[in-house]
């Protein structure tokens, strides 16, 4: 099989793994230390190419092999599914990746692999690629490596030399995971490895500048949003997770879930989960705040965004007076239509002694007025509510 054929198979097999190019702080030491080799982990700022689904193609995202002995019911590469099988040799992959990197087609490498027979052998092969790049070719650019569930401690330690590692958790707990995979064990194969990664990154400063991430397959095992939130809380607090990715389940032909006619998860559910994740990471929300928004089925409201739902549930906290001295950054971030940037700008202007008199002034610094108006008080004026008249 030719290289192009293999690339088509292994590139397509990796497309469901989510990743983003992230500049890592290795970049600061780069200019002082590395005067040879090639590459740096500084993000270019703009992704290189975009597919019609709107996602960027900035990393060279491939599997080393799509031969897999796991029986994950949702997976394109599961054992027993009839499809073309292929494998790259580490040298071959490194050669082509460096050629693409030199020509600025890609910004880094995202490497994963199917588990052919033994997880340790599969992990060893992927590590060989990383070590060839780092040691032989002095490649200092961005590498995101998938940790194979079941890899040993020593292998994980070596993998930590890449910029980011991730291990897919797929489902929020063991009972849900066992519904979609009989071979993966949540505690031993995934959580223990994540803990090792967290400890290694804590101990050694140079390890994993972009941290570790994980990915959920949303809706494949019939889990609720509450279960996902509980797992997320655990991962952020105990595993020092950098961020989580969510992939709405979409049945792939010739997989058990497709035969069982498990329905496709609406993409909007994925969006709501991302909103909740961002509210926790960037908007100073607590998980208790997010859980309070869930409906009786423990799911997010698909028709309203999560922050707006929170605001409606806590109407007594609003309106917030923008010019009030007690209005902190944290309070502003709870207002729909105000993001971290515009909230910081409001605080900065207030510190400089500026008083906002009109909504237009807020619009100018980036507040989405349409969403924010019902929850703001400005210069003694606020939007009237029907409650005031009833």
């Amino acid at each position: 099989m030719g290289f192009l054929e293999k690339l088509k198979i292994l590139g397509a097999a990796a497309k469901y793994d989510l990743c983003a190019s992230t500049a890592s702080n290795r970049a600061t030491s780069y200019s002082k230390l590395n005067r040879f080799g090639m590459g740096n982990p500084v993000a270019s700022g703009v992704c290189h190419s975009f597919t019609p689904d709107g996602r960027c193609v900035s990393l060279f995202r491939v599997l080393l092999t799509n031969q897999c002995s796991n029986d994950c019911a949702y997976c394109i590469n599961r054992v027993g599914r009839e499809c073309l099988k292929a494998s790259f040799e580490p040298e071959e992959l490194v050669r082509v990746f460096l050629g693409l990197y030199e020509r600025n087609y890609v910004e880094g490498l995202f490497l994963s692999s199917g588990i052919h027979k033994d997880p340790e052998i599969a992990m060893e092969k992927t590590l060989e690629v990383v070590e060839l790049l780092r040691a032989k070719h002095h490649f200092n650019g961005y590498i995101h490596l998938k940790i194979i569930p079941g890899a040993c401690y020593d292998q994980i330690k070596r993998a930590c030399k890449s910029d980011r590692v991730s291990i897919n958790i797929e489902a929020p707990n063991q009972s849900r995971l066992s519904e979609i995979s009989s071979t993966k064990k949540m505690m031993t194969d995934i959580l223990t490895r994540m803990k090792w990664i967290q400890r290694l990154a804590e101990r050694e400063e140079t390890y994993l500048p972009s941290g570790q991430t994980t990915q959920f397959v949303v809706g494949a095992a019939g889990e609720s949003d509450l279960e996902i939130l509980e797992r997320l809380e655990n991962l952020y607090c105990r595993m020092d997770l950098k961020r989580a990715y969510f992939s709405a389940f979409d049945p792939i032909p010739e997989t058990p879930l497709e035969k069982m006619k498990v329905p496709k998860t609406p993409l909007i559910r994925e969006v709501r989960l991302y909103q909740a994740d961002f509210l926790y990471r960037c908007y100073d929300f607590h998980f208790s705040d997010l859980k309070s928004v869930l409906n009786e089925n423990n799911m997010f409201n698909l028709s309203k965004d999560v922050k707006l739902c929170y605001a409606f549930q806590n109407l007594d906290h609003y309106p917030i007076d923008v010019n009030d001295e007690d209005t902190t950054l944290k309070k502003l971030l709870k207002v729909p239509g105000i993001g971290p940037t515009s909230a910081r700008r409001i605080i900065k202007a207030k510190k400089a002694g500026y008083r906002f008199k009109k909504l237009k002034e807020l619009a100018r610094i980036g507040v989405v007025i349409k969403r924010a108006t019902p929850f703001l008080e400005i210069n003694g004026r606020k939007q009237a509510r029907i409650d005031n008249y009833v």
Partner: protein
Amino acid sequence: MDESKRGLIIMCKDKSVIVVFDSTFESLLSTALVCESIGAKAIHKDHFNPYMIDKENKIIQTANNNNESYIQFEEILKTSEKRKGCFRLSNYELQEIKKLIDWNLRYKKNDIDKFNLILKVIRQCLTEGPGIVLSQVTAESREMYKRSRQVGCEYHKACGFLRLDVVGDFLVSAAKFEHDVEDLIVRFWSKRFPEKTVVLFSPSKRKPCAFLGNKGKISFIDGEEIAVLKAKINKETKENPIYSIVEKDSNEDFEKIFEAFYDVQYIPARRNKRLARRWVPKKYSERFKMKEGTKIEYGIEKTKLDSFLIDQSSNSTDKCEVKNILKKPKR
């Protein structure tokens, strides 16, 4: 003090003062201070003409020995005691404003009006406080931020979208730029590839030029030296036509490899035309491979990238000489 940091101060007969400044950061700051303290008018040196002052007010003194302009401006900005009425700027604020001015100095190569805007904003900083500028409350500060975003956007797009060709030890590319960002782009590449010499050809309207970067050091050439460089690159191509890390593969092969890779990355079930249209430059939307046989519609908003990426058909003169440097458009 370095001559370049001085401002030329002209006193006219009617006791009005004109300060002539250049494009350096120091000169701009000094000029802003002088204008603020003695009510002088400012003019950029490229626009200054001694005959512009009428006979009544003909120049009686042209000197650059006014102490006002020699003061280290950053010191003054930090110390409010030295100048009453001026706001004190913290280190962070100073750095932020300096960054803002630096990006604005790179705004549109031939636009002289940019200096007036910069001076206005510096004055606002001094009289009304840096917070007014940093939080973008005034129209001028917003305009400055808008311009700095435009310049930054062009720089980032170039870093992300420009393809490089490997020709021996050279990494070669070519692009037209609206703003002065070529040196930044070359610095970015030369840091990424310290063992290579990065060459960025910039066929500007006045004359073609090239920026070279090696191990973070940037140099600039134009005129006859351009022809010498092109000959050197062409010679390298002839002697060692397909030299790269992948010795047997050429630049075109990598184009094919990337095409193949790109084609399989799309998930049809997640098709999102609106999101894709937001990212892809209008000019290349026709070549953008939409699946299911549908072409993507043109976006309403103009994208700066349209004008800056060189199309093969639009540059026929350079095409024959440095055939290999002409970039195939990005998707």
